[in-house]
């Protein structure tokens, strides 16, 4: 994907963290910045869309339960945006654990799904894998 390649040429892969919990965002940010990623944040799906339209990202990490615009609504809106934005991979990390929840996320256009709480090691590993960075 050209976006990923050009970002890696520039140095660091860019990850957008979308979660309404400030502690979750802080945790992911410290974990990922420590692993060499460039990190931005958003508090709900609308802010996420603003960020995604403004700057390129290699991966979006999305919570589901957020006030005003939830994560699945955001992913649906993302997938119907103009490319290359529409093609940005999304990793859903959520409290919702049932197979129906997983299926709903897949149907919305999510690429990958993890259940909270996620360890820093698992987060690093998944993000590295999904951004194609070898760490």
């Amino acid at each position, binding site marked *: 994907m050209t976006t990923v390649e050009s970002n890696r040429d520039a140095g660091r892969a860019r990850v957008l963290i979308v979660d309404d919990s400030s502690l979750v965002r802080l945790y992911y940010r410290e974990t990922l910045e420590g692993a060499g990623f460039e990190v931005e944040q958003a508090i709900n799906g609308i802010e996420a869309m603003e960020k995604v*339209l403004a700057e390129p990202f290699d991966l979006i990490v999305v919570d589901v339960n957020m006030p005003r615009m939830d994560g699945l609504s955001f992913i649906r809106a993302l997938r119907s945006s103009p490319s290359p934005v529409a093609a940005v991979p999304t990793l859903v990390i959520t409290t919702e654990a049932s197979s129906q929840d997983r299926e709903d996320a897949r149907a919305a256009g999510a690429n990958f799904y993890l259940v909270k709480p996620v360890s820093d090691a698992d987060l690093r590993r998944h993000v590295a894998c999904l951004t194609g960075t070898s760490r």
Partner: protein
Amino acid sequence: MAPPEVQRTRAIHVTQEDVRRLCEFLYRRTGMSFDDNKRYYIDRRLAERITATASNSFQSYFATLRSDAEHEIEHLVNAFTVNETYFYREDHQLRCMVSNLLDDILRRKTTGESIRIWSIPCSTGEEPYSIAMWLMENWSEVDKYNIEIVGSDIDTRALKAAADGVYGTRALMRLPRHVIERYFGRIDGNQVRIDPGLRDSVQFTRVNLIDARDMALYRDFDIVFCRNVLIYFDDASRRIAAENLYDCLRPGGYICLGHSETMSRISTLFRVCRFPDAIVYQRPEADHDDS
């Protein structure tokens, strides 16, 4: 309130953790974020506000802020921003209007239909006059269409000043010389008056954004500039105002917020649109609604 001497000698201790808490709250509530190299700036403004509210601790100030007592959120945010109003403020949105929004709006227009632009709140009129001047100076199609510009505010004194069209020379600071010469006449060393033709081009009205009946008179606008007011409303008022503005826009019409504002803290009714010069928000076009 404590006498000034007591205020001066009482040093309110604010920790780094307190500042982090404050920044988290502000970010969640308004969308404004402060990276670490702006934190020193916050310390000073925070100290000002703690004094101004006669708070005797960070905690009591934070409680005031969280409950937005006496519009404290607005006071704090205003302490961070330059509050002067002047012509051609946030001109990136005016550029966006000419470069992108008008073309899209015209695609949907029938012949003879006016282009309607609304500045609300318009305060003392700099914004609607700026819109008018910008269009005349920068839009090659400006003479081909009828354009209505309306400026509205809840403050009748501001509206009167807007209709009078008299400004201090400081308000001209962003205007190129030829624009000043074209649209302003000097009154004396410190004051100018806006050209009467331009002044009469803008209609000024009193409107309360939250009053659905006030707002019901305003329909079919193509662009609304609604800057630096929605974010300060309480939860209920923000939603009501957003719904009112939705109804005031034509399907496909655009709304522009203030520089530090975001619809993510206000409403889901509008689509985010990214253009080279600005992020603006759009009422969905008619056929995108499911009936």
